[in-house]
Structures are given as structure tokens and as C-alpha cells.
């Protein structure tokens, strides 16, 4: 309606053969046989050095001195490193970070020094010998304290930091970025509303807990070329950040190579650059030798990105007929000590904090606030899970107050195609109503269920969700494609196989267009020297963006194939089509030319000369309709988000009145994938994301002491789901309202499936027991003790 969507591929037949099927993952055999190689599995020979990191025990302190003498002389030590070796700032969206701490440490666990030694044991032993003297300062451990007028400045030089033009830091405060949305007239709207509800919701920090810890091996060779093997979601962005961070040492992008094999789970935690810079930087000091840095599980918890906490102050006004007229949503983010990546989480949330609803009057504020806690960063959902907790709890409460069914209330206000978004642009086609309806049906909404167990009560809850990829407006994807002698295909991309099935989906797209079976298509993991650019595998955008790039490459390859046929046989291009790995012709039904016959060798003409040769192709995609223009005071005027994916979650929960234990008996989750290129993999995201989301609300519980030290950096006390902790039944529902500019209509779903899990439980608990819990996690303890209070009056 408002913009022209740029590209739509055709296939030669109306019926799709591969797209839409549950093709077996092309990396499945590697993973099931033990062949799959992760970074820590790679061998680098006897010369491999090992690094260990010395960390700050204080949340906020000035570094007075560091004595490395004893460590330098310890057995097996090759080099000791401190911040003095790398006095440079860097960062993804804002340059506020150091490789090793400089004058100050800003969170417990921050890296202060590093030891490189010949064995892991020697590195760990020597690290203990480094003596650091600190002048301890008073830390700021929550966002509200950090924005108080008299709060100490965690980054006094904030005003001088380089940052992307669409961030608005407030110099001389701890506010690193402030996204404001002002639309319509909320003051009048609230005054005229029939009912207004205002309340505060609190969401703490969470950890990604990918089972593979962060790990990196880095080597600067004697020709001054730096190669870094990392478990990363973003090899090209890592290369970029390494080149930027190490630019003072003379590096540019051509001098840096990043290689990323399979990744054992990312969830956002392996996006951007977290600990990898330590390995890369240290390697520059031991030229010619590879250095491995592998984080322990403890370090994984407290010194890689965490999901930010937030205090959400929410006010919504409605009319008696259920129409939402105004939303005022203030999000105070506990963003941590460095926000170079996390500030974009705050930004993304701020743009969409109305939730998936039609709202004419909006006053939203999303503040990225420095605290002396671990750096916040990208985590599946990117700010949306955090604000949906309060928002979807609030929706239920309003519905009850005005006497309306919560599902009806959502249906009435659900955002649909063409509706205006917070920032002025318009909503893409999407199946929100269908998602709501199908979820409500799946959990038998409206029918109360009685428990057979006298100790338990059954409650039901629903919650909606939406999310758009949060990316710079020029985030791009590219792909190379080549054929082999047997008609098989290699595709090189720099998107990452995190487990979501990305490689398989790319293969399915190419397979559909080139009619080569998925089993004959290899999609190679990234090497920034060889694979073309991909911004990052984040934001649930690679099916869409990289899919378009692969689609274009496949279409180009097809065009080149037809061109060779045309040159040799004279058939017109528009009479040619592909079928079963061969070229066919509508005007000559007898014509069959198998691809394997010519995709390397070419075709010999009657004169004995050859035409064609290796069929190679490329494709790239960069959205050309997005921009990050926006008025800093109103957020209006831009088109920052490419499109939204929407959906709905519903649960039937059984709750023990005495213990507060929650069993999720049934969960239904509908997500509008546009087109599920591989429905099995979409279901994988539904089940996996739902379980991860349920964990955040039911028992994941990060704790810090008064000094800012994380108390449970291990799986003993930070509980993530086991095979016992899953719903009895999950009903995955794939809605398909095509994304007009998506490959075969697809859009992303990877993050969305966890977003509504927290509020849906809070709503089910209220439905069952009449208690409204406004802080996460909603643990069995909180439920039991809250319910006990209500019972004893």
C-alpha cells in the first residue's frame, strides 16, 4: 500500500516441491554422528597457547595498580596483558567499551588482565598471581537509582562517545539512549477515557545459557594476518568490530579473517562481540601462535551479554466498548556497564512498546540506563519479551475491569494490515486475528476446567505478541552459488547455523528454483574470506533476508543455465523450465538436458566448440525502503523496521494451591510465518522458544548480592529446562499470511515464540487463583506465598 516491495521470484510450477516440506536437516547427519565440529573441537597443534582472564571482584572501582611480575615469571607463561596494551574504545552501535578495563572497572567480572601460557593449567595458575589494587566505589545496581539527579556518572565522557545517528544519549547522565515516541494527544485521551489502568511491572535479568560456552582461537601470523575462529552468530560483524577495535594497531578488514563453524546455540548471546575481542587482541601480542580462550560456565553467565532487566511503568486508557485510546509506556532499562549493543534493545522496544495493537495516542519512553552490572545485549526477543510481560498482563486486567473477555479485547484492538505504527509507517499483512482465534480454540478458551486433584486448580491464559527485526536500515545479506560436476550445488552464505535450520532452509529455497534435491545442496558455514557478506544471524531475519539473497542467486543461476541452452539449441528463454535437475522445453517436449551434463563442462556445439562453462551466480539483498530517520523528540518520520511477525500464545495450567507449582498441561502457540519454508523447523522454533520463555517466568532467577556480584552463575542454581520441564502437550499453529517481499512469502519466527510465555503464565495464574503477580519470575514460591496471604486475609 505505501511502499513497493522489491522482489518476487517465480517458480516454474504452481505446486511447490521443496518449500513447505519438512525436509531433513542437511546438517543433521553431522550432528547425530559426532562429526559436527565446533570451535573447541578444532585442533591447532602442539603450539596452541591458552589464555586465562583476571576479573574484577568489584562492581565499581578505580584500578589503582596491577602487579603482573609474579605471573610473568611463572612457569609456562608466554605473555601477560592488561588494559595498557589496548587503550582503545570500540562498540557496535556506540563506542563505550574497552578490550580490557582501563582506569575503572564497571561490573563484577569485568576483565582486567589476561595471561597467555603454554597450557590451560599454567594459564589459570598464573592468573591467580596477578595482584590488582582497587579503590572501591559505590556501585549503582538498579536503573531508577542510576537516573536519580545526584547519581554518580558511570560514563562521565558519554557526551563524547561515537554512536549511530539514531541514538540519543543524554550527556552528563547515565542515560545512554532515550527513544521517545510521541503521537497524538495522550493527555486528552486519558482524560476522556472511560477507564484507565496504571501500574508498574518488573522484569529482572536473564542469561542465554547456550550449552556451548563462548570460545575463540585467534592467530596473528607472521605476515600480520589475523585469523579468528569463533563460535559466533555474526562473523562479518565480528570482523568489522575486530578491525575497528584493533585499527590503532594498523588493522583493516582485509587483514582480519573470521571463521565460524557450527555454533552450539546462540540465542543472541553470540551476536556482536563479547569475549572474542579478548582472544583476538591477545593474539596480536604472540605473533605466529594460536591462542585459545574458552569461557567457563561461570564466565559465560557473568561476562557475556545478559538480557537486560527493566522496570516498566504502563498506563493504558480504553473506552467502555474496549477500544484502546491511549498508551503511555515508560521503560527503565537496567542496561549494564557497557551498552554498545544493548542500547539497540532499548531502541527496538521503544519503537514497539504499544504491543501488537492499534493505538492512536502514544507517549512511550525507553531509556537505556547504565548500571554497574554485566553488559546487557541481544537476547532472543530483543526487548520484546521484557515489555510484553507487563503489557499482556495489563491487557487482561483492563479486560476484566471493563467486563470484556480478554480474547475479545485483544481481537478488537489487534493491529492489522495498514494500521499506523508508533512511528508513522504502516503495518504489513499479518494474521493476528487468525492467530488469536486458532489459539483460543486450541485451548478451549471460555470453558473452565475442573481439576481432579483437590490440591490443584486449573487456569487458562492468553497473550499476544509481535516483533520486528531490529537492524540498521541497511543490513544486508549476500550469497554465492556454484554447481559441481554431478549437478550438486555449493552455496556460500555468512548466515549462521545456530540450530534453527538456516542452512537447510537456504537449500530448500535453491532447491525449489533449481529443482536439485536438498540432499545434493551443500550450504557452507562462513569464512569471511570466502563467503559473501551477512550482517548478522539475529533479529529473526535471515530466512527473509538471506533467503532473498539465495533466491536471487538461484534465479540468476537459472537464467544463466537457460542462456547457455538458448545459445546452443536456440530455444527461447521463456519456453524453458527446470524439472528434476534437467532443462525442459514447453515447445519441444522431447528435450531433456540434465544439469550435470553441462554445469561445469559447458555444452559442445555442432562445430565442436563449447559454450557455457561453470554455472556460478550471486545474489544480494538489502532493504531499500527502510530508514532510521526520526525526530528525536517524537520518534516520527522514519521507517526503521522492515515488517512485524505476529502471533498468540495460550496455556492451560494446573497449579498446586499449597506449593505454587505450575504444570503446563497444554500450550498452543500460533505464529504468522508468512510461509513456513520448512514447517518442521518452524515447529522446532515454536516448541523450543516456548519452553525457553516458560523457563524465564517459572524458575530462571538471576540473583546479585549488594555488591553487584552474581550469586548463581551455574546450572545448579540458575535452572534451565530439563526433559521434565516441558508442557504435557504443545500445539504448534502455523499461520501463513504471506510477506509480500519475502522468499516464497516467508518471514522470521525464531525469537517470537518465546515472547508471550511470561505474561501468558501470569494471566493463567490469575485465572486460577485470583492473584496478580507483577514481577518476574513468577516462581512457585511467589505463587504459594501470595496465595497464602490472600487466603489468610
Amino acid at each position: 500500500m505505501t511502499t513497493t516491495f522489491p522482489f518476487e521470484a517465480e517458480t516454474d510450477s504452481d505446486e511447490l516441491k521443496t518449500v513447505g516440506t519438512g525436509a531433513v536437516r542437511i546438517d543433521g547427519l553431522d550432528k547425530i554422528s559426532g562429526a559436527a565440529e565446533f570451535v573447541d573441537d578444532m585442533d591447532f597443534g602442539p603450539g596452541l597457547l591458552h589464555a586465562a582472564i583476571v576479573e574484577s571482584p568489584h562492581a565499581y572501582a578505580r584500578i589503582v595498580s596491577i602487579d603482573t611480575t609474579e605471573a610473568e615469571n611463572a612457569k609456562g607463561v608466554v605473555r601477560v596483558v592488561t588494559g595498557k596494551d589496548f587503550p582503545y574504545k570500540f562498540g557496535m552501535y556506540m563506542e563505550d567499551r574497552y578490550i580490557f578495563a582501563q582506569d575503572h572497572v564497571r561490573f563484577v567480572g569485568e576483565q582486567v588482565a589476561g595471561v597467555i601460557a603454554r597450557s590451560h593449567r599454567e594459564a589459570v595458575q598464573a592468573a591467580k598471581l596477578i595482584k590488582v589494587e582497587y579503590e572501591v566505589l559505590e556501585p549503582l545496581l538498579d536503573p531508577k537509582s542510576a537516573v536519580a539527579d545526584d547519581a554518580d556518572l558511570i560514563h562521565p565522557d558519554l557526551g563524547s562517545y561515537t554512536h549511530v545517528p539514531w541514538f540519543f544519549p543524554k550527556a552528563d547522565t547515565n542515560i545512554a539512549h532515550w527513544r521517545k515516541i510521541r503521537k497524538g494527544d495522550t493527555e486528552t485521551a486519558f482524560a476522556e477515557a472511560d477507564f484507565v489502568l496504571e501500574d508498574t511491572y518488573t522484569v529482572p535479568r536473564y542469561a542465554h545459557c547456550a550449552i556451548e560456552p563462548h570460545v575463540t582461537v585467534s592467530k596473528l601470523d607472521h605476515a600480520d594476518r589475523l585469523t579468528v575462529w569463533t563460535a559466533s552468530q555474526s562473523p562479518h560483524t565480528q570482523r568489522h568490530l575486530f578491525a575497528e577495535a584493533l585499527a590503532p594497531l594498523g588493522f583493516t578488514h582485509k587483514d582480519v579473517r573470521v571463521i565460524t563453524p557450527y555454533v552450539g546455540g546462540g540465542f543472541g548471546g553470540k551476536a556482536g562481540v563479547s569475549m572474542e575481542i579478548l582472544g583476538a587482541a591477545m593474539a596480536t601480542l604472540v605473533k605466529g601462535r594460536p591462542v585459545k580462550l574458552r569461557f567457563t560456565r561461570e564466565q559465560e553467565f557473568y561476562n557475556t551479554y545478559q538480557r537486560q532487566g527493566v522496570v516498566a511503568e504502563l498506563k493504558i486508557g480504553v473506552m467502555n466498548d474496549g477500544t484502546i485510546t491511549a498508551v503511555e509506556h515508560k521503560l527503565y532499562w537496567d542496561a549494564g556497564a557497557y551498552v554498545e549493543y544493548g542500547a539497540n534493545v532499548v531502541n527496538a522496544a521503544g519503537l514497539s512498546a504499544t504491543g501488537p495493537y492499534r493505538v492512536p495516542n502514544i507517549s512511550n519512553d525507553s531509556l537505556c540506563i547504565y548500571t554497574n552490572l554485566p553488559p546487557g545485549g541481544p537476547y532472543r526477543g530483543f526487548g520484546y519479551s521484557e515489555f510484553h510481560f507487563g503489557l499482556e498482563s495489563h491487557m487482561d486486567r483492563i479486560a476484566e475491569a471493563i467486563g470484556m473477555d480478554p480474547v475479545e479485547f485483544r481481537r478488537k484492538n489487534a493491529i492489522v494490515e495498514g494500521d499506523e505504527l508508533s512511528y508513522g509507517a504502516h503495518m504489513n499483512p499479518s494474521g493476528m486475528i487468525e492467530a488469536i482465534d486458532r489459539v483460543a480454540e486450541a485451548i478451549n478458551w471460555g470453558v473452565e476446567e475442573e481439576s481432579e486433584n483437590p490440591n490443584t486448580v486449573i487456569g487458562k491464559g492468553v497473550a499476544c505478541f509481535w516483533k520486528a527485526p531490529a537492524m540498521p536500515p541497511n543490513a544486508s545479506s549476500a550469497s554465492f552459488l556454484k554447481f559441481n560436476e554431478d549437478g550438486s550445488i555449493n552455496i556460500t552464505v555468512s548466515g549462521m547455523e545456530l540450530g534453527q535450520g538456516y542452512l537447510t532452509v537456504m537449500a530448500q529455497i535453491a532447491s525449489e528454483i533449481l529443482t536439485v534435491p536438498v540432499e545434493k545442496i551443500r550450504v557452507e558455514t562462513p569464512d569471511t574470506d570466502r563467503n559473501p557478506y551477512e550482517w548478522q544471524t539475529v533479529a529473526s531475519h535471515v530466512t527473509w533476508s538471506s533467503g532473498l539473497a539465495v533466491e536471487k542467486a538461484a534465479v540468476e543461476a537459472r537464467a544463466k543455465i537457460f542462456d547457455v541452452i538458448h545459445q546452443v539449441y536456440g530455444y527461447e528463454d521463456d519456453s524453458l523450465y527446470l524439472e528434476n535437475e534437467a532443462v525442459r522445453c514447453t515447445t519441444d517436449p522431447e528435450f531433456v538436458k540434465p544439469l550435470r551434463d553441462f554445469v561445469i563442462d559447458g555444452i559442445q556445439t555442432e562445430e565442436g566448440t563449447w559454450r557455457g562453462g561453470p554455472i556460478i551466480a550471486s545474489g544480494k539483498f538489502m532493504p531499500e525502503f527502510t530508514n532510521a530517520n526520526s525526530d528525536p523528540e517524537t520518534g516520527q518520520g522514519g521507517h526503521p523496521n522492515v515488517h512485524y511477525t505476529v502471533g498468540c500464545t495460550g496455556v492451560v495450567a494446573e497449579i498446586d494451591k499449597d506449593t505454587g507449582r505450575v504444570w503446563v498441561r497444554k500450550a498452543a502457540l500460533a505464529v504468522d510465518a508468512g510461509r513456513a519454508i520448512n514447517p518442521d523447523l518452524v515447529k522446532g522454533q515454536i516448541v523450543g522458544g516456548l519452553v525457553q520463555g516458560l523457563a524465564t517466568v517459572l524458575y530462571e532467577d538471576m540473583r546479585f548480592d549488594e555488591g553487584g556480584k552474581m550469586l548463581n552463575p551455574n546450572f545448579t542454581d540458575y535452572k534451565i529446562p530439563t526433559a521434565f520441564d516441558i508442557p504435557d502437550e504443545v500445539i504448534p499453529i502455523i499461520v501463513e499470511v504471506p510477506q509480500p517481499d519475502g522468499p516464497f512469502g516467508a518471514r522470521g519466527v525464531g525469537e517470537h515464540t518465546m515472547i508471550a510465555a511470561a505474561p501468558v503464565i501470569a494471566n493463567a495464574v490469575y485465572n486460577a487463583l485470583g492473584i496478580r503477580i507483577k514481577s518476574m519470575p513468577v516462581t512457585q514460591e511467589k505463587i504459594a506465598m501470595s496465595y497464602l496471604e490472600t487466603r489468610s486475609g
Partner: protein
Amino acid sequence: MVIAKEFEYQRPSTIEEAAQILAGHPGSARVLAGGTDLVAWLRDDAVAPDLVVDIKAIPDLHDISLEGDILHLGSLVTFSDLINSDIVHERAPLLAEMAETVASTGIRNRATMVGNICSAVPSCDAGPVLLGYDTTVHLIGSAGARSIDINDWFVGLRETARTGDEIVSHLTMQVPPHGGVYVKLMRYAGEDLAQAAVGIVAYPGDQYRVAFGAVAPKPFRSARIENALQGKPLDEALIAEVVAMVADEIRPIDDIRATAAYRTRICEVMLERGLPAARDRLNGIGPAYGTRLI
């Protein structure tokens, strides 16, 4: 992963030899059985022995056998052994019920029940259950053999009556007809340490042993609750009476796992649900062993 501080290792072939080795390294040697506690402590730098003494080569420590009403459990019997033992299922299924709540299969295949009570962390699962039986711990030290009643075993926080050069050889437990429950508060359905636990054994004639775990520095029996129950058939009033005693009997702490208030509340719930279940199991009915009551 790496254990930073190195140590010596010996693997004696008799229990007497093991005791002599320990006697020769007072305060600086650690016994290694299943290793699921010790190796983690070594890696965490929580302990730094000069010598680790592996007792797994000592024969005759793996037995599970029955003589009349006395169950003999060798000190190297693992939690998996308990779960897979026909004798245990027939004569003391409560042991298997408790064993199934300990960690997971891969841990249970190594971790020994005796190791569990030697580590004696406040939340040790075996403690509240073994206290419900007439259990004796048999040890061999450099000075010879010794037996310790389970009621004298747990001395304090992570402290047992075992002295430095003694090795537990086996446990003996009286297993006349009885019914029991082990109820354990965990944060979710997956593996967890107990935040609170109740072990109840019901004997004929309305005799009960009631023990608590994870709500005091050591597992312990509540004489007050046991005496109140003694010889009286369970009914709602009696159960309410002893549930009201719980708060005064236990000494839970606030920590990151749970608050003292919640632990207390759940101990009340566990006792309330556990007593009838133990009695029913004594009478051959009641929920199947392994059913979670909370």
C-alpha cells in the same frame, strides 16, 4: 576444563590399606568413590588435597544383600544400584524413591549413597531417609573396625562422626515391614538439590520416624513430632497438630534457592501429605513409590 592444583593418586586394593594410607596423610588426603562431589570441588578449588585415595578397587563394597530383616549395603553402592535392585524394591522401596530424586542417571551411575552421607551437605537426600530406619554405619580405620548409629552420624554442618583415617565399608539397615515417603522441595520438575525435604517411615502400631533435610545444618529427626504421633491412628486433627509443630522444629535459612518462610510452609505441606501416604504404603495401598507428592 582444568583442576588447577595437582595431587597424588593411589588406588589401594583393600580397605585396611586405604585406612593406613589415610592415616599417613592426616588432613591432606581425600577419599574418592563416585567422585561426583569431589571432582567438582577439586575443579572449583574448594578443596586442595595432596593425595586422592580411590577406593573403587576394593572388592566386596558393592553388595546389596539381605539377611532376615537386615539390609546390607556396601559403601560403593550407587544410587543407580539402589534403583535397579530387586531387593531394594521388595524390602525398602523408599530408598529407590529417594535415589530417583538425586540428580540424574549419569550422576547416579557413579554417586554412592554412602558418599552422599559422608559429604553430609545439609540437603543430602539420603540423610532424612536413613534416619527413618535403624541404620548403622560400619567403618574401618587404622585402629580397626567401628560402628556408628545413624542418629550419631551427622554431627554438624558438613560434619560427620567419621574420623580422618576411617573408610565406610557398609551400612546395615533394619527393614521390617514398613511404608515410607521421601518428599523433596525442588524448584522445578528437573534435577535439583533439596530446598527442604521430609523423610517419613511408618511402622506397624502407628509408629513413625519423621526426619527433615535441608532445613537445618544437618538432617535430623523431630522427636517432638514422632512422640506426638506415637501409637495414635492418623486423623485430620492429629496431622494438624504435628503440622503446627513444624515451624518450631526446623531452622531453615533464606538463600538464593528459597526463603525460610517458604521452606517452612512447604515442610508443613510435605508432612501433611506425607504422613497419610506413608501409612497407606505400610498398609499396601497408597501412591506408588516414585510419585511426587508436591
